[in-house]
């Protein structure tokens, strides 16, 4: 598979503030790629640089091998779905969708036909003659999608396009977006701060923070094997413990938890000393006796499908546990002293 976009050591500075510190990543053709991170991490800046709305301070952006860093936005075969849609308020829905084709010099008949087909694709044929202000938020969002896809861009950029929709609509649109991407075969670059969105739609995800790419991988990779403390903490919920690596032998490390309990977990490096250890709450189970760690239940939160238990390890550290709610099992009570069993490979030592 060839690369649709290659970002090479891209730096973005605004005066003395550095928004991106030499970001490098490659996005494959036909990929649904997500830039995920908290606000201010540089993900939108990066997207706007690909679109051509922001200058590149340093570095290169290659689109199918061609450096586009100096090109004006109208010279780039990429289109954007804006966060607030930016539909032209004085034009009908059909004219909005046909706008890119008109600018490209497509004849009136052809562009009306294509715009009509795009509206069909997003189920809005009946609204072709309306003004954007006469549509609901979800409909406007689909018009914005149709408008950006109509000129057949090689890459579609989506800047938090679902953030203005309510929850139900957002969940429905996730499925629709992924379907659309598969049907059109266009590379999608999707920016979001919502990890659930990222995990459900993406082929691969780049987790960003403070102008750096922290990790790139599939949803499973970044969830199961976070490379550092930030990724482990940002994606999903996890228990982060400050531990001391006492010894490493044969890829297995002996770590000591605060409070003195010890356990064995896989380790890629030989470094001893202080590390962070991540254990996902759902990879822990409760046992009456034995287990890997001893803990006391402090609080039980009923979540419907799940129970969330806040426990405290002997010696001090807090540990969250998530177990499936079942009618058969006894619900633990605060004060219960229990054993925690860690699933094989679920305790992960983080690099930093």
């Amino acid at each position: 598979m060839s690369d649709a976009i290659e970002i090479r050591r891209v730096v973005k500075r605004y005066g003395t503030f550095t928004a991106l510190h030499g970001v490098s990543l490659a996005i494959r053709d036909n990929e649904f790629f997500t830039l995920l991170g908290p606000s201010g991490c540089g993900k939108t800046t990066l997207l706007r640089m690909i679109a051509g709305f922001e200058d590149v301070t340093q570095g290169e952006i290659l689109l199918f091998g061609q450096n586009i860093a100096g090109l004006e936005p109208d010279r780039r075969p990429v289109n954007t779905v804006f966060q607030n849609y930016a539909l032209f308020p004085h034009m009908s829905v059909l004219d909005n969708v046909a706008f890119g084709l008109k600018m490209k010099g497509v004849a009136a008949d052809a562009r009306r036909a294509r715009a009509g087909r795009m509206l069909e694709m997003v189920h809005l044929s009946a609204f072709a003659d309306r003004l954007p202000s006469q549509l609901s938020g979800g409909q406007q969002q689909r018009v914005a999608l149709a408008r950006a896809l109509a000129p057949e861009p090689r890459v579609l950029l989506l800047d938090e396009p679902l953030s203005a929709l309510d929850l139900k609509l957002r969940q429905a649109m996730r499925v629709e977006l992924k379907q659309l991407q598969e049907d059109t075969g266009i590379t999608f670059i999707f920016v979001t701060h919502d990890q659930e969105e990222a995990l459900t739609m993406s082929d691969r995800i780049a987790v960003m923070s403070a102008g750096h790419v922290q990790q790139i991988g599939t949803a499973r990779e970044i969830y199961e094997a976070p490379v550092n403390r930030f990724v482990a903490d940002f994606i999903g919920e996890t228990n982060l413990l400050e531990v001391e690596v006492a010894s490493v032998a044969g890829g297995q490390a002996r770590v000591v938890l605060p409070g003195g309990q010890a356990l064995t977990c896989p380790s890629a490096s030989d470094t001893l000393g202080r590390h962070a250890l991540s254990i996902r709450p759902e990879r822990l189970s409760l046992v009456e006796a034995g287990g890997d760690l001893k803990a006391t239940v402090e609080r039980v939160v009923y979540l419907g499908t799940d129970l969330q238990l806040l426990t405290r390890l002997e010696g001090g550290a807090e540990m969250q546990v998530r177990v499936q709610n079942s009618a058969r099992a006894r619900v633990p009570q605060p004060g219960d002293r229990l054993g925690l069993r860690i699933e094989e490979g679920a305790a992960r030592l983080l690099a930093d």
Partner: protein
Amino acid sequence: MRGVRHYPGFLAITVLCLVVLYAPLLVIMAYSFNGSTSITSWGGFSLRWYADVFTGPESARFGQAAWNSLTIAVIAASLSTMIATAAAVAMVRGGAFRGKRATFALINVPLMVPEIVTAVATLIFFAMIGLTTGYLTVLIAHVTFCIPFAYLPIAARLQGIEGHYEQAARDLYASRWQAFRLILLPLLAPGVVSGLLLAFIISLDDFIITNFVKGAGMETLPTAIFGSVKQGIKPNIMAISTLMLAVSVLFVTLSYLINRKGRRSP
């Protein structure tokens, strides 16, 4: 919370202000229909002074002056609106540039400079560059002082239009010019029309600057009226004034309606 009408003296002050502002206008409008040659005694309803304006002994003078006023107002309003639009786009959309604050001041300070000062300065300027005063100098002066008036509604409108629209257009293969003409200008239109009408009215009734830079023999309607009044007020002046008032009210109303219509649709 108590409404403003409950403040003591509210009614008296309001009535006083309204009387001071509008009573003279009402008197002029009423007496323009006076059948008598006197300006103080009522001689029954008549349109004779309106007829006098168009056919009387001073009609040629007033006709020429009205033509000058009208052409200068149309040209000055058009040119100043174009310049003001360019200035507003640069100021609101141009991002940060050196001397932006100074530019803002340069555009707006003329609104606060006493008109007499501008008048004298403009006259001296024309004299220094050796331009003979006449129609052209009046036109140049009007274009200049109309710019800040045209600028205000245009810049205000532009500030309310989000930058995303132009970016979306650029993203969809529009050149800078196309993004301006097809997207920004239609959205900006109510502000532009409003600025145009305001500039037109300001130009139409300017007296002080015009009087300084017009030179001998050249008249606009306000200077012609002033010249005529110096020889004593005749009722035909009231008819002309009423006509000018009607034109002004018409344009201000149009400007208001267009601006309101534009604001309602996002």
